[in-house]
């Protein structure tokens, strides 16, 4: 598979085993998301929920949406979007943390 990483027009077939593993990973993270709501983390509650959601989003993008097989430029774009999202959240919490 690695040989085809830089050939975006190739068809990539991900095995059922890999897809099943990704699905189990996503379900496990969903379970974690629900479980942490029972733990009192104070202001970190939102941060933990968002980090788990970002990891899940990353997994979906990487395997289900085939980002793994795309040109590096697309990965940089997605990385940039995640970075922007993180910065917007951090800047918003500049208000809440110091109010």
């Amino acid at each position: 598979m690695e040989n085809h990483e830089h050939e975006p027009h190739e068809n990539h077939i991900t095995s059922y085993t890999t897809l099943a593993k990704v699905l189990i990973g996503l379900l496990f993270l969903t379970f974690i998301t629900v479980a942490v709501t029972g733990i009192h983390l104070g202001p970190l509650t939102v941060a933990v929920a968002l980090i788990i959601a970002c990891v899940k989003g990353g997994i979906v993008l990487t395997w289900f949406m085939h980002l793994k097989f795309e040109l590096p430029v697309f990965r940089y774009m997605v990385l940039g979007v995640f970075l922007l999202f993180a910065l917007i959240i951090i800047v918003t919490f500049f208000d809440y943390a110091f109010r």
Partner: protein
Amino acid sequence: METQNNQLNYIEDTQGRWGIFAWIFSTDHKRIGILYLISITTFFLLAALMGGLMRLELIAPGETIMDAQTYNGLFTVHGIIMIFLVVIPGLGAVFGNFFLPIMIGARDVAFPRLNLFSWWIYMAGAILAVYSQFAGDGPPDTGWTFYAPYSTESGTNVVAAVFAAFVLGFSSILTGLNFIVTIHRMRAPGMTWFKMPLFPWSLYATAWIQVLATPIVGITLMMIVAERLFQIGFFDPALGGDPILYQHLFWIYSHPAVYIMILPAMGVITEIIPTFAKKSIFGYKAIALSSVAIAAVGYFVWGHHMYTSGMSGTARWFFSFLTFIVAIPSAIKVFNWVATMYKGSIDARTPFLYAATFIFLFMIGGLTGLVLGSLATDVHVHDTSFVVAHFHYIIFGGMGFAFFAAIHYWWPKMFGKMYNERVANIAWLITFVGFNVLYFPLFVIGIQGMPRRYFDYLPEFHAGHLISTIGAFILLSGLFLMIINIYRAKKHVTPAGDNPWGGVTLEWQVPSPPPTLNFDEIPTITKSPYSFEK
């Protein structure tokens, strides 16, 4: 680089469709650009007339032609139409659609059907926006900002209005996506990033804001609807919500949206100045990268709309600091435009007059923006007519005059006909004078304490309001003269020729009007886009 073309032009080539269907079902980027031009101009005139009515109400203290509730509805409707239907799509949807593919040497955008779909979504949103003004429980009275908790309680037609803005957001996202892919994938052979003209550069920076910021306001507006229907408690303090959270979420989109409006305007000015100074643009890379810098830093300055909201002091100085930072790339552009004109062979034709006016008005808007970006002075002028004046100098003086510059610059290319330049120059003068007479007094009475969004005022503000109303009608007459002159040009038969201004970018190398597929053969680019050497 000269291209000869034997195809039908895009106006003659109806592709077998009849009448209006040849337009509303066409996937040709040029026809879609014209669809947007007609739609946006119509909504602009409607909202400008509303502005005229508001100014008439303010001609004297007390109730003159309407009551307070009607005035509240009118400034909300004026704002919604101008922001969501005119200035946000504005230059990108009209001139971006028409000229982006031609300027980068492509035959169309990457996704032509999606492009047409974007216009249909725009029209659906527009119909919904207009519906929200006349149906249900009366026009929304929240202002275009839909601030919570009032927007969650107002008995007026808020749900339809915010849903219209939500739908219009999809059109914006899809257009942005189309432009990003087009610029990445469809540039002509040899057109490297730094050989691309600067209008496409500005559209590229804008497109990223459209794609990344618009979903935030979409969700925020849906949260308003959810709050109204299900009393969830996102924003209403009575339900445990936080109204400042609404302001954060709204301005996370709506401040970058100001750059959606102004970046393409800067791109237009960057095209016009070298053409009429007959000189290569000064500081090409600085202008290109400053567009990207404005788009990037512009994401993090939204809090300067909220200094008096009760936000934390730490967040306030942080946002103030970044606001001053974002002034730097804007100033780089102004410096480069002026440096381009320096020792140029300036030909002060109509598009140049509008472009120079843009710089003048944008400078006034920008410098008064620093007054609003400073924590201490902002507290004094917050929610006064000073803000109204600043905003209109940036958006109308900036984006509006850039739109007028663009229409006068590219009209001969779009239709192959030249307008009457003498009348166009008279219209420019009336518009310029009217604009300043309308908005400058608002700075003065704003500093004196005149609140914005009030239908009545104390007698000491009468002189300022009277002058401003006179200015509004001077401006409206200038606008009507301009539109009539341009419309007559389409009817008359003064051929413009392929390159009436002596421009050097690719759109001036194709016939006027351009053929359906733009080029017989896709050109190979070897020179910089602003190379005036023979």
